[in-house]
């Protein structure tokens, strides 16, 4: 008698309970949430979801647009910058490269609250406070060590002979990098995109402070702003959260497959 599947399923169900409560209560009217929180939503109502999409203050829709713009821009710039920097540092034999690498690795452990106040000062120098561009730049600076860490590790698995061959064929460094090296780094690019995409989408403190209370927010900060207004109307809060999470969840699930394919497809071997 094997108890493992029963125990595993039981533990999994208990663990999943909070998420189950969210999923069922989105589709219930407020009264039913309080009366019967764990019951299935029959008949389901879509009022909660519709209310979030049709908010008069557009907290969700504007937040969604901001989140997509900030995440997409940050991740794109981060992938390009950290691939170039990671490749440069991995290949350079100059002592300065080691110093730069060490300094970048220190940045991996610095918590955001420690540097939040000076970050706002730096943004004010460039007049970028409360702008999406400012938020993108902060993300790029803060997450570049993580990108570099992943890319340098991966660059070492790309044979130097490939780059030499391309250089001998007359390609300059720029072409060697973009046409030979970068395509081979695809698995690293995929991991950087997945990790940073999820982290930046989910970030709370940085957009909360950088974008400020008056201008628009990201959807994640929008969830925080929404709970103050809904108080204990859990159905509406859950609907907001669900819609705010859905895009990044789809992104994660879609890319995760790609990522596994990239690792197993022999892309590294060239």
């Amino acid at each position: 008698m094997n108890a493992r599947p029963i125990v595993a399923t039981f533990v999994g169900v208990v663990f999943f309970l909070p998420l189950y409560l969210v999923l069922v209560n989105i589709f219930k009217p407020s009264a039913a949430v309080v009366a019967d929180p764990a019951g299935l939503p029959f008949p389901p109502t879509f009022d909660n979801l519709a209310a979030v999409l049709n908010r008069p203050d557009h907290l969700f829709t504007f937040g969604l647009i901001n989140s997509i713009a900030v995440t997409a821009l940050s991740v794109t710039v981060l992938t390009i910058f950290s691939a170039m920097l990671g490749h440069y540092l991995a290949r350079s034999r100059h002592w300065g490269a080691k110093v730069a690498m060490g300094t970048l690795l220190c940045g991996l452990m610095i918590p955001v609250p420690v540097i939040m106040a000076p970050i706002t000062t730096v943004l004010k120098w460039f007049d970028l406070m409360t702008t999406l561009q400012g938020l993108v730049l902060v993300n790029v600076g803060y997450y570049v060590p993580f990108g570099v860490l992943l890319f340098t590790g991966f660059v070492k698995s790309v044979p130097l002979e490939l780059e030499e061959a391309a250089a001998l064929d007359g390609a300059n460094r720029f072409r060697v990098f973009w046409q030979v090296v970068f395509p081979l780094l695809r698995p690293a690019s995929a991991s950087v995109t997945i990790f940073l995409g999820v982290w930046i989408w989910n970030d709370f403190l940085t957009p909360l402070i950088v974008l400020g209370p008056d201008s628009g927010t990201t959807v994640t900060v929008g969830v925080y702003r929404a709970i103050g207004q809904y108080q204990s109307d859990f159905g509406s809060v859950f609907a907001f959260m669900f819609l705010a999470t859905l895009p990044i969840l789809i992104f994660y699930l879609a890319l995760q497959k790609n990522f596994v394919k990239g690792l197993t497809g022999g892309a590294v071997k060239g």
Partner: protein
Amino acid sequence: MTQTMRPPARVKARPAPPRRRSGRFLPGLGRFALFALPGLVAYALFVLVPIGMTAYNSLTNLNPFNPPTRFVGLRNYVSLLGDTEFRQALVNTIIVTAIITVLANVGGLLIAMLLDRPTRLYVLLRGVFFTPVVLSSVVISVIWQAILTDDGLLNSALRGLGVDEPPGWLSDPGLALYSIAWIMTWQMLGFCVVVYLAGLQGVPRELNEAASIDGAGALQRFRNVTWPMLAPALTINVVMLLITGFKAYDQVRVITNGGPGNGTTVTMAFQVVQTAFVSNRIGYSSALAAVMLAIVAFISVVVLRFLQKREVSQ
């Protein structure tokens, strides 16, 4: 590793041709400017310069609404020693960090061993445990707030079961901090599960079989075969959780805002942000931030080195 295995002659001969060739198009400095500078400038502007400013500001009484700013030396740090709010934040942070590190590691290891089977059911369950790791801590906080608040889903259920006065999970000053720690554990559990599963899959079958033939029981096999092989996974999980605990902010901000009562759930990160952006005492907040950074740096370097030494010695 691979570099040390290469014959030294080839390493010496290698860099010459491409370097000379590319030099025509992009001299060394240009290459640096093109490839390295963009990332380095962004990092310098938004991490290095702010670190320097935090260090400098911690030696001043900077408050944008209360000029003039003066250099006060180490006075902020001396004030920290007698600051009871700081002491409470430090103790709270240590409690939260200790709880999540122990619970998520123990729970994560047990669940990983439970799910260490290749069939569909277990793969699905891994996904279940990993889901909260992908969600925002704001979302996690709101879910648990709805469950644990006084008239929330848990207490409604408890009342339904006949409990007249269910606990105030988030409103009882003696309980709220533990509720926060529990919520963080729930979110980080899946991370530990995945790391331990990867570690378990690296334990060679033959080792366990050999130990089994030699007469080792399940417990002995775990202690002497599996557990030593999990040392790298333990290192990752412990360091990750210690750092997560020490920078805990989101959950406090969303769920309790430092309350109930007098700062019963204030963590160091929360105090740093409140002092800077609510009280506007940037100078004092910078000293707090510097202490917090020192602790995180200590964990990252000393604990990491200790655990890695343990990996090697085993």
